[in-house]
């Protein structure tokens, strides 16, 4: 298995968000710790939608790096996020599913949840150039 943790350390923005990886039963789980600096709505408080979208995209990228053999970091072509619930002041977790891993393009679907994995706060899908 590729050392995704090392790749994670090599992405400054992932370090900035404090994202880490845990090994789940069905593949890697990305974890976004809660801290005050990622808040968009200070009164709830809730994580900024842009950070939730960023985390989904990062989860997709790391899920892809975990599966693919290439040495380069895949480049996002597009990414679409559906915001389903507000993400509260808690740890957010994400898991990625590689829908298709082609020769040049990969299509990746991701969900983010807090607590119950069935209680999805945001879902995303994107295409990456390998």
């Amino acid at each position, binding site marked *: 298995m590729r050392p995704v943790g090392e790749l994670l350390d090599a992405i400054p923005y992932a370090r900035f968000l404090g994202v880490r990886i845990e090994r789940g039963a069905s593949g890697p789980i990305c974890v976004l710790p809660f801290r005050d600096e990622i808040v968009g709505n200070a009164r709830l408080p809730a994580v900024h939608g842009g950070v939730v979208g960023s985390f989904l995209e990062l989860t997709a990228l790391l899920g892809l790096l975990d599966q693919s053999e290439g040495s380069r970091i895949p*480049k996002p072509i597009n990414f679409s996020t559906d915001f389903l619930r507000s993400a509260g002041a808690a740890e957010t977790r994400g898991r990625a599913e590689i829908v298709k891993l082609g020769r040049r393009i990969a299509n990746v679907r991701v969900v983010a949840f807090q607590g119950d994995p069935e209680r999805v706060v945001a879902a995303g899908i994107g295409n990456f150039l390998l």
Partner: protein
Amino acid sequence: MPRVISRDETELYPLEKVRETLEALPHFQELGIRIVEVVRGACTARLEPSPRLVGNPDTGAVHGGVITTLLDSVGGAAAFSAVRLGQTVATLDLRIDYLRAAEPGLDLYGHAQCIKRTRSVAFVRGTAYDRDPEDPFATCIATFMLGANPSEHPLQRLAEEAR
């Protein structure tokens, strides 16, 4: 300005309030985003590049997620500037196309425009550019629910104050 926007300023959020509220967001300050301009139905913001925002260490390109935050924010502001006083705004979906890499070292701009507002949805288009607004490195399309869950959007305080 889309024709759906009321001409009566007293029915709309004061533009200066939209700007102040956005700039006070903790994550806005953390990323160093500055509002350039808020007009009725549109918003432009600027982000200074920083090594900690890099997503691809091979190229030095800023992480796509930073662009997501920039465009979600200007999109939300564009929607807020176009809705009736007291209405709430919540991002429903946001799709970004990454057209090219942003040039390392340049300030990044996000611009969004509300192209249509119905009773329950605001439709927004946006671009992100470095040198030339006509040569964007990313485009986005987003929809915002209006008057939905009242607690969803960071600009919610404005809606509550207006009541």
